């Protein structure tokens, strides 16, 4: 018997991760509801990062991947044709030479807090983005998203004076569900407030590259 959906999706994800590893690419996946600020966060982070690539999963439209910083060596749009999430096999479409050109890739999943969580794509780090405008109770309403994530990124903190968002409640709810989750705050309007987030992923990416005997700065 011994068939399990999780095991099955994990097999595909592991194969895709091995493929990223072959090309020495550290991959960060962003999950979050539509409008939580995934795209603008990537756009704002790139100038502070080194060379990177961006993959954008969208149900339709080509809107998201224009006018990125020169650090962004390539962008790629994956149209899921109305499917609600990316799958590991969708990422086969990234050309190998693109992976070879950068040590770091952002993958923006389709805006959805349910379906992408049960479909890992082989990223090294899964980041759940929650904007303060959505309300802190969203974490308790979508526990699967919290369970799937390594990092909870609370975005649009510049709006905190205008909305009632309880940062402490968000942190507590997230860590009760997933004690290993890191919780960070970010405001993509202010470069200083992007630093802790960029440092966080750079430290992880550097550790990844160093553990493979690579110098992450080249």
């Amino acid at each position: 018997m011994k068939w399990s959906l999780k095991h099955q999706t994990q097999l595909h994800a592991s194969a895709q991760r091995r493929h990223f590893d072959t090309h020495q690419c550290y991959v960060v996946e962003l999950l979050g509801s539509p409008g939580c600020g995934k795209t603008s966060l990537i756009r704002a982070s790139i100038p502070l990062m080194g060379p990177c690539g961006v993959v954008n999963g969208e149900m339709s439209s080509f809107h998201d991947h224009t006018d990125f910083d020169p650090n962004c060596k390539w962008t790629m749009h994956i149209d899921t044709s109305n499917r609600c999430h990316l799958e590991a096999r969708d990422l086969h479409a990234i050309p190998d030479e693109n992976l070879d050109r950068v040590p770091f890739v952002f993958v923006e999943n389709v805006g959805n807090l349910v379906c992408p969580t049960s479909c890992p794509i082989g990223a090294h780090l899964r980041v759940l983005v929650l904007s303060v405008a959505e309300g802190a109770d969203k974490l308790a309403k979508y526990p699967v998203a919290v369970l799937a994530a390594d990092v909870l990124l609370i975005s649009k903190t510049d709006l905190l004076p205008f909305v009632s968002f309880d940062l402490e409640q968000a942190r507590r709810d997230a860590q009760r569900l997933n004690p290993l989750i890191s919780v960070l705050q970010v405001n993509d309007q202010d470069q200083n407030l992007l630093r802790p987030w960029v440092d966080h992923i750079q430290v992880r990416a550097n550790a990844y590259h160093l553990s493979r005997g690579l110098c992450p700065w080249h």
Partner: protein
Amino acid sequence: MHELGVAQQIVAEVARQAPDQKISEVGVEVGVLSGVVVHALQYGFGVAKLGTLLEEATLTVATGLRQAECANCKTEFQSDQAWSCCPQCQSDRVKFRGGDDVRLLFIEVVE
């Protein structure tokens, strides 16, 4: 939304495990946090089984609960919630796991 795909995977797996056999019943466990909606899975199974040896089969679904252990009083319990306080001592130091998978439990073959 992705339940049809899950149902297709279940049908394919049953056909792989019981090749060339007519199937009367398939049992699965659907976790409360699996993200799979049972009635959508039933519907998807009804579509996915058409034209296969599972055509006559019913899908029996059990609920996969979360396993919990209180770090304070060590009470172990099961829950259909993602997280809750300990029912015994009300502590909030409770560790939850599981309930997030879909598993194949049994296959009944037509004799």
